[in-house]
């Protein structure tokens, strides 16, 4: 288990939980970042990170990404 923000580019991760305040958590969930979903780290070097869920790409501030807990697939 680790925060999403530590994900390496190209890595596939599964979201485990979202540990932000209420409003932000449900927003993320509605945008498709919910426990159990598999995401791919598209870019994560500086500033916000980009994750891919299927064909959609979501930009996520680092502060928020550090509160999303995920695990590697294996």
């Amino acid at each position, binding site marked *: 288990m680790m925060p999403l923000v530590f994900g390496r580019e190209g890595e596939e991760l599964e979201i485990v939980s979202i540990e932000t305040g209420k409003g932000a958590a*449900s927003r993320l969930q509605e945008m498709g970042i919910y426990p159990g979903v598999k995401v791919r780290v598209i870019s994560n*070097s500086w500033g916000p990170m980009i994750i891919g869920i299927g064909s959609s790409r979501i930009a996520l501030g680092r502060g*928020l990404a550090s509160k999303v807990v995920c695990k590697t697939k294996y």
Partner: protein
Amino acid sequence: MEEKMLRIALIGNPNSGKSTVFNALTGGNAHVGNWPGVTVEKKEGRFKYKNFNVLVTDLPGTYSLTAYSIDERIARDFIIKEKLDAIVCIADATNLTRNLYLLVLLRELGAKTILDLNMSDLIEGKIRIDIQKIEELLGIPVVMTSATRGIGIEKLKEEIIRAKDFQSEELHIEYGNDIEEEIKKIELGLKDFPFPYSKRFIALKLLEGDPQIIDEVKKVGFEKAIETANLAVVNLESKFGYDLESEIVEIRYGFIESVVKQCVKRIATVEEKLSTSDKIDRVVTNRFLGIPIFAFFMWITFELTFKLGGFFAGYIDTFFGWLGDFIENYLSRVGSSHILLSFMKDGIINGVGTVFIFLPNILILFMFLSFLEDVGYMARVAFVMDKAMHAIGLPGRSFIPMILGFGCNVPAIMSTRTIPEERDRLLTILINPFMSCTARLPVYVLFTSVFFSKNQGLIIFSLYALGIFIAIISAKLFRITIPSLKGKISPLVMELPPYRLPTIKGVLIHTWERSRAFLKKAGTIIFAGVVVIWLLASLPFSQEYASEGTIIGQIGKIIAPILKPAGFPYWQVGVALIFGIIAKEVVIGTLGTLFGGEENLPNVLSKLFTPLSSYSFMVMTLLYIPCIASIATIKRETNWKWTILGVSYSLLIGWILSIVFYQIGRIFGR
């Protein structure tokens, strides 16, 4: 045969191709864009099918029925409050799970919904979707379309017509015994609740703690139900240790995943390679290249805007000059009164004409920005600038409105509607008038050409920079001092649409939609302002237009001493600044009139102003008040309280700063 009217609405996630479906249905002129939340204005179109005349409303993109931004609120209120014959929920077939979330909410609400699985061409050969199975599981008609290719649109029309006769029960997802029990209790308390849809939906929303639904329920006097819900939340959360809101969302997703599992078959393993968009993003959002690339695009945009715009503006100026002369000749020939003549020429033609001169600049600027937006680049700008913007106390999304402000503050202020957090949006609106719009440029150009002919570019640049600086400082100041603007900057979460090659038609339509807002102002607010100022400058009619003896001349005389510490204690300048409220460039025209013609202006100015006082005058022009059109827009987007705050703040800051520049400059003896 008699035609029957139907009303429907299109709803869907941002980037689900909603606008494209709208265009395919109505064959019409709606914008095709791919910036999340681009459909800001309510867009309507019609189509005829068989014996029906169908009115289609395109709603802003939304992920759910909880309203975070104004856009989403528009969408939700429309669905809940309007009586619609059908709602078409457009879902991106390539990203089914997330897109079905909105559909499930609509179904829980009990709205009459048709599911349109769009972008079906993109899944061909990769996955197969069992339409009948989805229809069965969700209890609604499902259509596959590829709106870009016009596939499936006839079928969709057919289903829309059929939907009027079809009754759909609301969807009932099982939330488990404990939650279900609480839902029932709350429903009991909502017995006579005036709501055309499912009460269960309201109960669920209360459990999820949707602030706006709670407000609405409170308004009609069902506090009891809210209490029951609050108690239930505390009970459930302490008993199970979960966050109830998240739990409900997760159960919904669980339901959706089971639907998707039963209906979707993967034919080929979907390749997980980086798409072309991802590769472009590697460069465009790169740590070192991101901001320089953006700066380059902006530089090209502004170069061309001012070069091309200036070219056309000259012709428009000539045209209005000619029109003024023509009307003057005509009216004096038919022997109309002196007052009517002055009203037409000094009031209407001069006033409205000066505003129209900026139309080419605005059109060209918006054409470029629309192009960048349609390509998908604008979402990346918010991304690239997020970090830098945080440093100045605003989210990345506030950056686009600030950039647009260099063109015209009116559409810039309107574009803040996509900012989700209300306090961020208010801040972005309040500081926008400090971004130096094109209307202020002629004032700089005239004064710098007289007083700073060697460093003209540098001086003008310093004014733009000063505007940005004041905007940043003000944002910080407002954030610290005004209680309702306090709080953290909202974190960035936004979808990046894939890059697309925009169509010329799309860009032109989008350009027009944005410029129209400006033109509309010219026709209404600005026109009214022109009339008022003309009256002030004419009364009493015995005096010469805008001379010392008129009301405006008297006001100018009152203002003059106030302007003294800033270095320009002339009543004519006071009058010019009042006229500048119509549009800042009117300052020049007024000075021209009052000092005996624009040709003499450089001569007169060089006697009345020093380089120092001319600079403090330009600072004043930059900051002192937003123009009438901007004020009206701020009012429309906020309320009187914020409008008055914004106007008085800028009056104060303009006055103080021009004094500061003048007085400090004098110490250094220039």
